[in-house]
């Protein structure tokens, strides 16, 4: 089978064997949930409950009038203990609803589900919004907004992203193996919502079982394909995936709809199917708990708002962890404490042992050019880093700082161990702050 791909990129070791063959497990309910009211790109939600209220599982507890936003729901029944700023995985303090979980779990009455065939595009968007769907691949962009392209940007192809190119993570892989019918149902809904005639399930070639299973499952579906893609990081990045599947390049600063494409992650696709057919809000997700410090690495189904500490305990503990990352090793966020909740966009918990945790001191740039050679956006990370260090923000911008999506390749390959992603982030923040004040 020939595999398609994009230009540049790297081949890091996969580290997926620890968890890829293990079925998704449910874990014990935690005693407390911390549910941030702002888990998505866009406007934060305001609380719909107050301290002391009893809530039911699936009950909406936060919403916003803004178009670009997504409501949040109680992931379990219980009592609202507090509504206060709590530590979020990015390090920020985010207003959160703290729920003491009740012994007896009861589901809130859900909006009626529709048969997938009967749902209109408007029904699908409304269900996505009501269920609080966001992109579960990490960026957490509200799904309903993505499903509402303007009429002058017709979308011909939906791409369901099953690449899972981040090392260590296998939750999308497990979802593909365990829930193929929901993925296909969700893909149908995505196509219908935006009026696309074609859908491609893009899967990296190292998941041959998923390729085979989904390939068989779509045999009778019209307009649907499964495509094997080269195992290369960042194959699952939106623009790189569109390039690989459709050979179209999204222009700098533009969205995929510019080239008639829409990309959704596997988990989001499943969640959309559940939202439309069962009225099920997004209150739980599958994530990979892994890394050499985890005693019993596995994929687990967890309630949104569960603390990292509880999840690690349920996986046998991580006694020797020196670094705990939410997300994948290339783009994830290192945590300062285990008392931080996982949210809708969290795809993994990675616990690293001291030998793998760094931190590395860094040297000056030796201009080896590896970051330039491997950058999938064809930028010049070395110069962005140098000018960010020198506080020359205009020059950092001229070398492409704003076009970087922080895949982490530059810092991964840098022989001087320069924190290039951090330099880019600093440059971006400074450039946008200057624009705003100008």
């Amino acid at each position, binding site marked *: 089978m020939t595999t398609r791909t994009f230009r540049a990129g*790297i081949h*890091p070791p996969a580290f997926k064997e620890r968890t890829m063959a293990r079925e998704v497990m449910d874990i014990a309910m935690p005693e407390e949930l911390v549910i941030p009211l702002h888990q998505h790109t866009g406007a934060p939600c305001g609380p719909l409950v107050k301290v002391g209220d009893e809530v039911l599982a699936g009950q909406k507890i936060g919403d916003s009038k803004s178009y670009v936003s997504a409501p949040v729901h109680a992931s379990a029944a219980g009592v609202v203990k507090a509504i206060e700023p709590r530590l979020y995985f990015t*390090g920020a303090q985010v207003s959160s609803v703290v729920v003491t979980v009740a012994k007896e779990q009861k589901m809130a009455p859900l909006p009626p589900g529709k048969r997938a065939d009967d749902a209109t595009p408007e029904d699908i968007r409304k269900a996505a919004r009501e269920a609080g769907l966001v992109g579960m691949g990490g960026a957490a962009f509200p799904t309903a907004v993505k499903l509402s392209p303007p009429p002058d940007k017709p979308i011909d192809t939906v791409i369901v992203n099953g690449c899972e190119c981040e090392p260590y993570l296998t939750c999308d892989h497990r979802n593909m193996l365990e829930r193929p019918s929901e993925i296909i149902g969700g893909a149908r809904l995505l196509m219908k919502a935006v009026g696309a005639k074609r859908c491609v399930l893009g899967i990296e070639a190292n998941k041959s079982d998923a390729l085979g299973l989904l390939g068989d499952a779509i045999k009778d579906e019209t307009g649907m394909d499964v495509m094997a893609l080269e195992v290369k990081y960042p194959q699952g990045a939106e*623009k790189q995936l569109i*390039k690989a599947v459709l050979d179209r*390049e*999204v*222009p*700098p600063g533009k969205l995929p709809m510019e080239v008639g494409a829409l990309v959704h992650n596997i988990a989001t696709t499943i969640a959309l199917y559940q939202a439309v057919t069962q009225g099920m809000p997004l209150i739980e997700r599958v994530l990979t708990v892994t890394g050499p410090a985890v005693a019993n690495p596995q994929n687990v189904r967890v309630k949104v708002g569960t603390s990292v*500490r509880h999840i690690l*305990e349920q996986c046998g*503990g*991580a*006694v020797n*962890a*020196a*670094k*705990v*990352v939410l997300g994948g*090793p*290339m*783009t*994830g*966020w*290192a*945590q300062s*404490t*285990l008392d931080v909740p996982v949210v809708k966009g969290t795809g993994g918990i990675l616990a*690293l042992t001291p030998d*793998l*945790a*760094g*931190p590395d001191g860094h*040297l*000056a*740039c*030796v*201009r*080896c*050019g*590896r970051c*330039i050679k491997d950058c999938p*956006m*064809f930028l*010049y990370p*070395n*110069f962005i880093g140098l000018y960010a260090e020198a506080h020359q923000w205009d020059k950092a911008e001229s070398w*492409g700082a704003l*076009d970087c999506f*922080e895949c*982490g390749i530059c*810092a*991964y*390959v840098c*022989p*001087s*161990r320069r*924190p290039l*992603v951090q330099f880019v*982030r600093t440059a971006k923040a400074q450039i946008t702050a200057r624009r705003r004040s100008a």
Partner: protein
Amino acid sequence: MKPCETLIVSPPPHIKSGVTVPTAMRDVLIALLPVTLTSVYFYRLNAVFIVAVCLAAAALTDLTIRRILGRPSSVSDGSALVTGWLVALCFSPTGAWSWWTAAAATFIGVGLAKEMMGGLGFNRYNPALFGRACVIILAPLFVLLNPEFSELAVRFPMPDAISTATPMALLKQGMQGPAYLRLFLANAGGALGETSALALILGGVYLYLRGHICWRIPVSLVGTVVALTAILGRDPVVHALAGGLLLGAIFMATDWVTSPVTDQGKIVFGVAIGVLVVVFRLFLGPVEGVAFSILIMNGFVPLIDGALRRLKFGEVRGAALVRKAA
């Protein structure tokens, strides 16, 4: 569970490739082994001695200069040793060679051209070539000094068959040079690093396979020299294989710090050096044209990098022009 209560927080990525500056420098040293061994075959202990002197001088210079500047020693990153080794390969144990000249060249390279410019990554000029070129320019000084130090001179026995004239010198005098095959495989005469084209190419292929250098600079440089000498009616094969051309093209012009980082820039850089080499060799005096050509083009690297940028992902040529004009 009792997890470590102090967790390390650092920006992503949280995994790194195995390539670091020290491992890369180690690979360069490995790549220099074939030609060094060839020179040891021809010059015996003389070659070993030059390399040893330069390595020691490089390490000592790194230690002392960095101590004076208040920086921790950087001998362990290997870059000073690479410079020292490359300086050694620029010297020939025949003729008026003396070990203190090589030590001085190393000191100037590591100390002045690199450390005083800010250390590895901040030097504009290739340290090894800068040191070598300074010694060439300071030749009258060494003529003056050498008799004072003559008692310190070290000479090891040399096999009889070694001719003192380098192929390039023979060519300049209009004499018959060595046969092509011998020039390619192994030929005594000239600097340590000029004893075998094959050994240099082997080293270059190793560096290429390890991902440390790309083909653009060596190929465009040597290609330009071959094309120009052929057009001008000279022997392109001798010009490609003899003298310091391959040593310069594979190991000096590809120096990370002092060569362009852009793909197009590398080609321009290589071609420009090639043109300069031909000008030096055919029309100007010094035999060490390669060293001066590379050093001259080192100075143009920031200009080349700034002028030749590739398009970003999804960018079209016209849009790039608009962006520049705006």
